[in-house]
């Protein structure tokens, strides 16, 4: 861990500003990169530094003030030495991220309204999504991720982090491995964000150490995401003869054992076992309180078959097989064939024709036909044109784009080069959110390599076609995913959408015709060119061709990144691929499309994944978030959750969205707090209608969807809340904890209760004092006999006993 500057810099050294202005340029559009670099250096944006930027550049004070307060990445106040990012993505939310946040504040004694503890060590930061949905609930302390937390275990996570810091363990970054020489066993390890968060870097280190130690005939090879995020970290051992064994949830400390198992007689393992325990000291995910489950996974095993069987890999082809940054390997797996074919023989027009015939529609959510979009740009007046890759994936609970950029950078870039060729663009930008550092690093490396090999730059592969690509880092604004807001952001403004038309295809970046495509859309392009339009249409339904990548999370046994053919039913996804809820709780609904999407009840399980079918059911395809909910999830609370998100992310430009989302949120908060007023449901409906029809951009127009769809399918739950009850027993203000007669008087709950709401009473039935209880859930979790139950608040009198 690098030493952090102190909380407050008494004298600010501003020389740094001059250096970085020289680096980023002085034009107004350099404002975001400059702010990002300033913050990387000072850890916040000191006013003196901002004023200096204005002196040195063409950036105005109004612009720097507007931009630096718009994007949530930027901080204007000094922060603690370490930042704890608490993920509030949908998956984490349904698994209790709110309780985790409360527990952290309590543990660090952070006052209401503050975000940093008194000693300036830790700063708490809510983040929309860390993209590790399968480890939910997740927090990240600086670069270390802790998953599967409970309110009770946050203290240990912090302690563990401080110990790591003391030992000065430096997190390792992934570099590309040398290619595997013939005759060697390949040990593949996932290096996607989920696997890394699951501890794969440490596992990899151990594997390498042990191979060296044993002199084994094996190499460790980093591979992209396999999609089985519920099993991270995954290790696959492929022998020289091609036999493969997969190990799931391999924990640090066990990796060495795996290597020995494959390369030494079994007897030795037994001898070494006692010595192994010493390694298990500082683990990233805490096996100290959760027994490590490691087991061999064979693809022939039934669950894995189901998980993989119904999937169809197009955008994620060769997942888990190829090293993300090995260009040779990408080419050996048909990579760059499509690009070569296009540049060699195909005219842009016939290429666009193929895409039109394939029926490819934008995977960002709205589903606009990609070929038509390209055609518009191609036939816009001659001049400068741009290609943009929209990687501003912001749905909490979705990480498709992140995974594609991390695991298949060359495929995305090949698709983008083809798109640029088709539309006649000579410059392009990949807009990637800064919350995805790994994706940015991989794309940067991949761009350098493509340039070195003649796939980018002047006269690509000897053709007359030239293209330069660069990365623009997003700074934390969900609305930047809207294409006109994306343009504003690249141009160095607040990411506020503008009225369309004109569409970016006619009047885009700097007023030039611009094609904007989503990451997944571009990743599908090479396959379509290589396999033909009909192969793609054969995969889907009549209006929705091909496949769709989803991040399957929530109350599901086997979550992860999945790619399915269009037309598959929701039930197949939840039951067959996901294996159901994985608990005794019933599958209640799926939430599709995140904050712009809606909830479909289990009775709609036969709905097909198809743009039109989902719309007809009151939902949208969205970008690919798919959260499974069980009967312990409250739909009103979920609507409140999404409205909190969109209200926070509204850019504030147009009245219906800026104020409408706020007023809707107030009503939803009242409903969840048991303070609703008569007529609230009707008011909510009316506001939803107003915001839907009157808002300027897609964010505002779709913001009411989570409300409208839950009102449509779960209106009874709203009515119950109006009467002060939460049928799912989820809304804290409407429930009460109580102890039943299963209590054996072990005092565990009383000792664990952070609010002193339970009096210590050995061998007696314990009682929760309702006026002190904060409903943090800790007592229920520590109770060894399931004696703590949650009940309806209205069924309790003031003393906590049942009426």
């Amino acid at each position, binding site marked *: 861990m690098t030493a952090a500057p102190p909380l407050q810099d008494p004298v600010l050294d501003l020389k740094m500003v001059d250096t970085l202005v020289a680096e980023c340029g002085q034009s107004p559009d350099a404002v975001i990169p400059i702010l990002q670099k300033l913050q990387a250096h000072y850890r916040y944006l000191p006013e003196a530094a901002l004023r200096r930027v204005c002196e040195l550049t063409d950036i105005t004070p109004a612009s720097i*003030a507007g931009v630096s307060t718009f994007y949530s990445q930027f901080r204007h106040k000094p922060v603690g030495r370490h930042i704890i990012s608490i993920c509030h993505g949908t998956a984490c939310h349904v698994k209790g991220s709110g309780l985790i946040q409360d527990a952290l504040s309590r543990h660090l004694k952070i006052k209401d309204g503050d975000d940093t503890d008194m000693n300036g060590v830790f700063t708490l930061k809510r983040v929309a999504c860390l993209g590790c949905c399968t480890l939910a609930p997740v927090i990240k302390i600086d670069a270390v991720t802790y998953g599967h937390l409970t309110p009770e275990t946050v203290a240990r996570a912090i302690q563990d982090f401080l110990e790591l810091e003391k030992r000065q363990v430096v997190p390792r970054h992934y570099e590309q491995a040398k290619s595997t020489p013939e005759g060697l066993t390949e040990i593949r390890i996932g290096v996607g964000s989920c696997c890394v968060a699951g501890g794969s870097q440490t596992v990899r280190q151990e594997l390498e150490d042990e191979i060296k130690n044993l002199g084994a005939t094996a190499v460790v090879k980093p591979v992209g995401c396999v999609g089985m995020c519920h099993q991270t970290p995954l290790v696959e051992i492929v022998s020289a003869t091609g036999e493969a064994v997969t190990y799931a949830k391999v924990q640090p400390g066990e990796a060495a054992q795996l290597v020995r198992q494959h390369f030494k007689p079994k007897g030795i393992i037994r001898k070494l076992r006692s010595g192994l325990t010493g390694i298990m000291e500082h683990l990233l995910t805490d096996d100290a309180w959760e027994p490590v489950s490691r087991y061999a996974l064979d693809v022939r095993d039934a669950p894995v078959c189901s998980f993989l069987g119904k999937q169809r890999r197009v955008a994620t082809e060769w997942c888990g097989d190829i090293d993300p940054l090995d260009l040779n390997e990408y080419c050996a797996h048909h990579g760059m064939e499509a690009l070569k074919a296009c540049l060699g023989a195909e005219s842009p027009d016939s290429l666009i024709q193929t895409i039109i015939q394939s029926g490819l529609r934008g995977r960002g959510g709205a589903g606009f036909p990609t070929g038509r979009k390209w055609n518009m740009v191609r036939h816009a007046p001659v001049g400068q044109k741009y290609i943009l890759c929209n990687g501003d994936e912001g749905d909490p609970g979705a990480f498709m784009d992140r995974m594609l950029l991390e695991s298949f950078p060359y495929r995305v870039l090949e698709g983008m080069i083809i798109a640029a060729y088709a539309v006649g663009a000579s410059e392009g930008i990949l807009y990637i959110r800064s919350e995805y550092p790994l994706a940015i690093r991989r794309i940067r490396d991949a761009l350098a390599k493509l340039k070195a090999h003649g796939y980018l730059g002047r006269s690509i592969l000897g053709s007359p076609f030239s293209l330069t690509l660069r990365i623009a880092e997003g700074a934390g604004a969900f609305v930047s995913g809207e294409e006109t807001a994306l343009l504003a952001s690249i141009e160095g403004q607040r990411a506020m959408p503008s009225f369309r038309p004109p569409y970016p295809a006619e009047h885009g970046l700097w007023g030039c015709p611009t094609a904007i495509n989503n990451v997944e859309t571009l990743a599908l392009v090479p396959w379509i060119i290589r396999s033909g339009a009909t192969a793609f249409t054969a995969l889907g339904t009549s209006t929705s061709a091909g496949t769709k990548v989803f991040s399957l999370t929530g109350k599901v046994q086997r979550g992860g990144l999945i790619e399915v053919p269009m037309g598959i039913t929701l039930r197949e996804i939840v039951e067959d691929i996901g294996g159901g809820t994985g608990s005794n709780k019933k599958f209640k609904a799926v939430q599709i499309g995140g904050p712009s999407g809606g909830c479909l009840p289990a009775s709609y399980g036969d709905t097909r994944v198809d743009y039109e079918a989902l719309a007809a059911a009151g939902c949208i395809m969205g970008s690919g978030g798919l959260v499974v909910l069980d009967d312990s999830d409250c739909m009103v609370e979920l609507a409140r959750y999404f409205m909190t998100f969109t209200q926070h992310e509204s850019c504030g*430009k*147009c009245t219906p969205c800026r104020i409408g989302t706020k007023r809707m949120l107030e009503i939803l908060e009242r409903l969840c707090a048991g303070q609703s007023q008569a007529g609230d449901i009707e008011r909510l409906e009316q*506001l939803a209608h107003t915001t839907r029809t009157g808002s*300027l951009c897609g964010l505002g127009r779709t913001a009411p969807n989570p409300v409208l769809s839950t009102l449509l399918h779960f209106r009874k739950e709203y009515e119950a809340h109006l009467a002060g009850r939460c049928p799912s027993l989820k809304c804290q203000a409407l429930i009460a904890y109580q102890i039943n007669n299963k209590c054996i008087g072990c005092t565990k709950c009383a000792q664990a209760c952070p609010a002193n709401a339970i009096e210590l009473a050995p061998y007696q039935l314990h009682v929760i004092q309702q006026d002190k209880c904060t409903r943090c859930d800790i007592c229920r979790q520590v109770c060894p006999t399931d004696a703590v139950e949650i009940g309806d608040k209205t069924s309790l009198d003031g003393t906590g006993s049942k009426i």
Partner: protein
Amino acid sequence: MPNLIINGKALTVEPGTTVLEAARLAGISIPFMCSVKGLPHFTSCMVCVVQNTATGQLLPSCSAMATEGLVVETHTEAVVQARAASLNLLMSEHAGDCEAPCTTTCPAHLKIPLMIRQLVDGQPAAALATIYDTIALPAVLGQICPAPCEKACRRGRVDAPLGICSLERFAADEASYTPPPPTLPTQKRIAIIGAGPTGLASAFYLAQAGHECTIFDERAKPGGQLRYGVPNHLLPVAVLERDIQRIHLPGVHFRMNTHFGTNIALQDLKAQYDAIIIATGKTSLEILTSWGLTATSKGIQIQEHSFRTSDEKIFAGGEAVQAGHLTVRAVAHGRSLAISINQFLKGLPVTGPVRRFESRLGQIKDSESQELLKEAAPYSRTVSLAGSGAGFSCDEALRESKRCMHCDCRKAESCKLRDYMEIQMAGPLHVPPEGRKPVERNITHPTVIFEPGKCIKCGICVRITAQQGESPGLAFQNRGFDATVGVPFGDSLEAALGHSAKLCVTECPTGALSWKDS
């Protein structure tokens, strides 16, 4: 040149014309708040929406271009609803009163804070002119008004209310009054029966509008109860005379010692005059019905706002329609009568005075009181050295005037939000008043006052300061509902609004930016 159709009207416009501009050229008015000609459009308020007939979609007309073949309607039900919804949402966060509580409480609706600002500015004549806009007997009311306004004064919740009545008296006593130049005679004749406060006030405003007024009264001198009912120690005759003197405008005739019913009959008056006002004061039911008018024990029955009786030519006010002793109400009736008759004589719908939409804060928090107190002197209520019966001296009046918190809005008469709310008041969406922005005032600029709680985030001032090259200028800060307009780096408003101040204040569609002295 694109051809389009707006409300069925075919138009051809220059390429690059917005739908809003095209409609304006065609004489069709569309409400709008966030756009200004010559500035880039921003598409924020969503009040200017129109409906695309082909798709049914609502388009912001300030940003949608007039394109070939476009067909739009500007007043469909969906449009009206969407506009009302946006306006209601804007109102739901609006932190400001259109009129100060003192003004809304005053039966005559006197613009008290404006009067006080004029006194502070050392312009008592202007202050008196402000009083005369709504009150025709200022000296009288300065003496005897029970001042309901003072009960509503927000300063009363801090220490003690302003001495509004004494200030009015000061202006009436000390300032010289020049009546506005007479309008062209209309050749219309009005008979006013009763020379009490209602009759006198109505004559004053009717004469100003160019009508010929004849006041009939059975007594020897005008003034009614003010002369013959109120004891002299409460209202010296000299004070009354001064007010009456100012009502002696060209076109005002007094026919004293004329008993209505004996010397003149209603039927004759109806034949000779274009309209008749009955301001006879408290009159018995028997007499009232004998005139052939519908009446109850309380008085003559009139239509609520127009003061019209069952006879369309006859209007009535004062105690003849409503028993009670508030002189200020009787005086206010006089002005309302004049407005109704003016409408009647011009052939307009007779509605009485315009009842404007009013944003009302109601009770405010203590922290908000503190914001308003920024403009007020901290000391306690002024006591006249000359004794409680005497008026303020110049110094005392100035001292007391400085205590005013200026609760009113400086843009009450030019605020677009108020204008449009008035038109759209029957909007379908009612948002509960909670969650409005806090009342805030930035008074650091020498001439401009900035009230963020009234800002609708249209960004007009942000664009103006940028266009005019102000540095630092104004900037949007934060995002979403928390977005505000402010000065970068917390610099002063004076630094932000230099040469562009005038343009910003003029173009700001609400009272967020206004002149301090307006």
